[in-house]
């Protein structure tokens, strides 16, 4: 069943076309990477699909209902969104930040129940954060903060996870750790994952399908091997890459001529 259906979606900011007539659909449980050069409209597409921006032209159906028909809180029960966040001003602890993921599920004037607490405990343990639970969020490294963000998103119990550049500023060890955690979660819960990635090699390794964007248009859309083709990438990125097969996993990988 398709969880997202995007139909003839266009978006302008101050008469400038950011997105131009996009149509595609995403199935439940898929892992989708959105790639493309800077300014190609990737993040705007993510914000439209997650309901932060309202579509002006075209339509986005989420579970067969227009995304605009959902209330903000309702949407937050289905959709979690991870992006590079500023470090909060206040010194909340890891545990407190993760617990805020339950916000969309709380009714007004109620607080967390024992079921919420056991979920939080379980997820903190799963991500190996239980030793850090009472530490203030400021004292963590960038990689640890990203783990906290994953934990908060998991506590939100969404069906869809959007990620905007989840690995920026992380070293390779932490990049793989973050991506593995997300993949495990996806496979265990049949989560739909839609992420904007700059790193094409990570995108190839961790997604089922790719959307290649160029100047607000859908340049290519399909399986990783179909999208990561020399001519397509050369056209979009204005540089000719070399494409090889990963010696271990067999997925397409990109090398640059330099």
């Amino acid at each position, binding site marked *: 069943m398709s969880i997202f259906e995007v139909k003839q979606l266009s978006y302008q900011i101050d008469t400038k076309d950011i997105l131009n007539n996009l149509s595609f659909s995403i199935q439940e449980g898929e892992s989708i990477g959105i790639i493309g050069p800077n300014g190609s409209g990737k993040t705007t597409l993510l914000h439209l699909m*997650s309901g*932060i921006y309202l579509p002006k032209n075209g339509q986005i159906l989420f579970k067969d209902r227009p995304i605009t028909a959902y*209330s*903000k*809180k*309702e*949407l*937050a*029960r289905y*959709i*979690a*969104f991870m*992006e590079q*966040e*500023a*470090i*909060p*001003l*206040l*010194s*909340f*602890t890891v545990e*407190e*930040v993760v617990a*805020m*993921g339950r*916000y*969309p599920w*709380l009714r*007004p*004037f109620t*607080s*967390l129940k024992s079921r919420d*607490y056991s979920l939080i405990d379980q997820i903190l343990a799963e991500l190996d954060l239980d030793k850090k639970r009472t530490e203030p969020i*400021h004292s963590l490294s960038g990689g640890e903060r990203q783990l906290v963000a994953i934990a908060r998103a998991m506590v*939100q119990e969404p069906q869809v996870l959007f990620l905007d550049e989840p690995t920026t500023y992380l070293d390779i060890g932490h990049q793989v750790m973050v991506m593995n955690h997300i993949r495990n979660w996806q496979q265990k819960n049949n989560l739909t994952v839609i992420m904007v990635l700059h790193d094409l090699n990570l995108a190839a390794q961790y997604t089922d399908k790719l959307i290649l964007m160029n100047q607000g248009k859908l340049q290519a859309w399909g399986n990783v091997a179909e999208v990561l083709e020399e001519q397509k990438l050369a056209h979009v990125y204005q540089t000719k890459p070399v494409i090889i097969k990963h010696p271990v996993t067999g997925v397409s990988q990109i090398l640059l001529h330099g």
Partner: protein
Amino acid sequence: MNKNKKLFLWMGGLFLFLLISIVISLRIGSVGVTIHTIYRILVSHLFSIPLEVDWSTGQEAIIWNLRLPRILLAMVVGGMLSLAGVAFQGILQNPLADPYILGVSSGAALGAAISILLQTQRLFILSTSISAFIGAMASLGFVLWLANLQSRQKNEALILAGVVVQSLIGALLTFAIALSGEQMQTIIFWMMGSLANKEWLDIGILLPYFIFGFAFLWTQHKEFNVMALGERAAIHLGVDVNKKKWMILLVASLLTATAVSIVGIIGFVGLVIPHMLRILTGPDHRILIPVSTIAGAIFLLWADTIARSILPGREIPIGVVTALIGAPFFAYLLRQGLRRKSL
């Protein structure tokens, strides 16, 4: 959960401190009245028990008509300003936001002063509060517009914008009072605040705003917490950030405006108290909002007790006391907080 226990312990401790402060403050003043007599006067009034009168009518007037209403008014105003400070800091994500520094107090004072000078109360009793509220919202709007919330140096920009608006409004206020032929004393009252010559009625006017403001803001504690993660994170978690932001700014301005319309501008309460309590109890607004409110009440009660008793036979404006404590604290925060970018 242990959070409930923490809230209970802090609230209990602060309430006890507040009660002790009230008793001590009732004793302080040029006319000495023993604790025993104070107790008997209070009991006879509060529970209308016909006790044998062993006190003078002078003592009774001093305790019941002068000191007690003044103490209660200081508590209510302190609670309101501290509450407004928590709300402004939380919603603007700025550790230095406070009704005084944002220029909201000045705007409220100008609004209230104009209404009083024009004697609009003769037409409509609440007109001074409303006028103060309009002044408060106008100056807040102006400060936020000047500071442009998107700007990178938003802490610094907000303070500069506040300074500009405060100076402008201060000048307008002084001009308005001078035009009306009033004395310097009135100007000082508005600029530095005073709780002298207030009555039970003034408490009655403020109490509904205080209760409403507290109840509204406390029920928003989850939203405050989530918004402290950043506006984007709050939107992703399903908070209608724009709506909440405006509602909270309105309520915080209303609290400031009504307090200022009765007692004039009293600075730094909303800055110092929430900060201290955040250091002591942590950033969770479920705890922070009520404890800051009581601590604000205690703080202003003591500030006013000092203001009325430190010089024998005369008063100093209460704003002098709060500024002497608050301004160095502000300077400290400016250096420390801005360098670390965290609190």
